[in-house]
């Protein structure tokens, strides 16, 4: 990647649409056929992949202070379960990808999105408890209230849970976790961590 020491601010011309493609922090205006910066930062040019049909390099703005992370469909989030109801569980999103969010975002895991198989037999109370930390996929922007989340994958589900006795629970199967202090077994939709 070629980083130029040229500082740009929103609205500054980065190049012509015929010479470059607009990358992060840049946008293409069809009216003027010009690429402008949309953020403050350094102008950098990324050469195109050798096998790409479009041989225009990408121009983008790097090294800027981006706004806080916002959940988008397809992103993996870390959320804390706040409420478990018969048909859905609500959770507060804490991280999007590897970035923590600056503001609170609410997500909902519906009954049919908990696991991939036997989706009509899911017991919400046997899948999550309030306070659990879950890894989930953002399905869609959802409704006016919350984002729709899904844990219907092996690597998605509860990654950390605390038992009634206050111990950090250890996963013992796909559906069960055990408290190391009391030996009590609780049911969860367990995520396959690592590997």
């Amino acid at each position, binding site marked *: 990647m070629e980083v130029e020491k040229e500082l740009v601010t929103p609205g*500054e011309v980065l190049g012509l649409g015929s010479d470059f493609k607009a990358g992060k922090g840049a946008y293409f205006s069809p009216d003027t056929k010009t690429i402008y910066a949309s953020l403050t930062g350094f102008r950098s040019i990324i050469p195109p992949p050798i096998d790409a049909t479009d041989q225009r390099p990408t121009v983008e703005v790097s090294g800027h*202070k981006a*706004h806080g992370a*916002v959940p988008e469909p397809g992103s993996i989030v870390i959320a804390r379960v706040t409420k478990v109801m018969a048909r859905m569980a609500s959770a507060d999103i804490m991280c999007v990808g590897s970035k923590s969010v600056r503001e609170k975002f609410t997500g909902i895991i519906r009954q049919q999105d908990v696991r991939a198989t036997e989706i009509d037999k899911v017991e919400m109370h046997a899948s999550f408890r309030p306070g659990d930390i879950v890894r989930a996929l953002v399905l869609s*922007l959802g409704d006016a209230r919350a984002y729709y989340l899904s844990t219907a994958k092996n690597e998605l589900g509860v990654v950390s849970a605390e038992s009634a006795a206050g111990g950090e629970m250890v996963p013992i199967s796909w559906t069960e976790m055990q408290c190391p202090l009391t030996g009590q077994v609780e049911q969860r939709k367990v995520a396959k961590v690592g590997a």
Partner: protein
Amino acid sequence: MAGKRGATPATYSPSLTTAKGKKKPPIFTDDANWVRSDGRHFHQCRPAFLRIATVNSASGSAYAEFGNTKVIVSVFGPRESKKAMMYSDVGRLNCNVSYTTFATPSRGQGSDNKDFSSMLHKALEGAIILESFPKTTVDVFALVLESGGSDLPVIISCASLALADAGIMLYDLVAAVSVSCLGKNLVIDPISEEEVYQEGSFMISCMPSRNEVTQLTVTGEWSTPKISEAMDLCLDACSKLGNIMRSCLKEPLSAPEE
């Protein structure tokens, strides 16, 4: 205790009787060699002082000082829209303009200014790439610390700097300038005293590098040649203000390298 002494006001406020009783000072006469009270030419703006990242708790913020007009703008978010709001695919902008109690010479209530809030919203909305933060809201809070005339243009320019500081994707910065019509003369960037005597006001907010206007307000009686003269004046001033705003944004990034 002293609670029953009805004559004593609860808080100190300077008496305004002397100021109000005075006859209107002849700040404006129709002759051509009238000078503005701060010694500026008719087509000369006040010196601008701009700073970004002045509020720690906000995502982005900016402070602007144009003569006596002092404004601070904080930007929060993008954050979750209020529950009562309808679902929307694109982001939302929420603007609020308020005055401090000590902003005007007569001690006020420090109330919100609804007109300015909606005008600020209209001026900024067109410059923000709302698609970049779907379903969420960006809050812009402007606080006028001292009102010294041309408040709204200063708020708009300052708010666009704060948005850029917050890392909100923008099509371009927004620079705003106003012109007052005083008799035969057009004065740019009027101070409060001049705004009192104005026959008409003209404000333009534009995106300097895109050459697009986001908002235009005209009040009072204007002739067509006057309007076009005012527009030329404002657009020229906007592009110059835009350059000042750009150098202000670049300042913190370029400083540590040298």
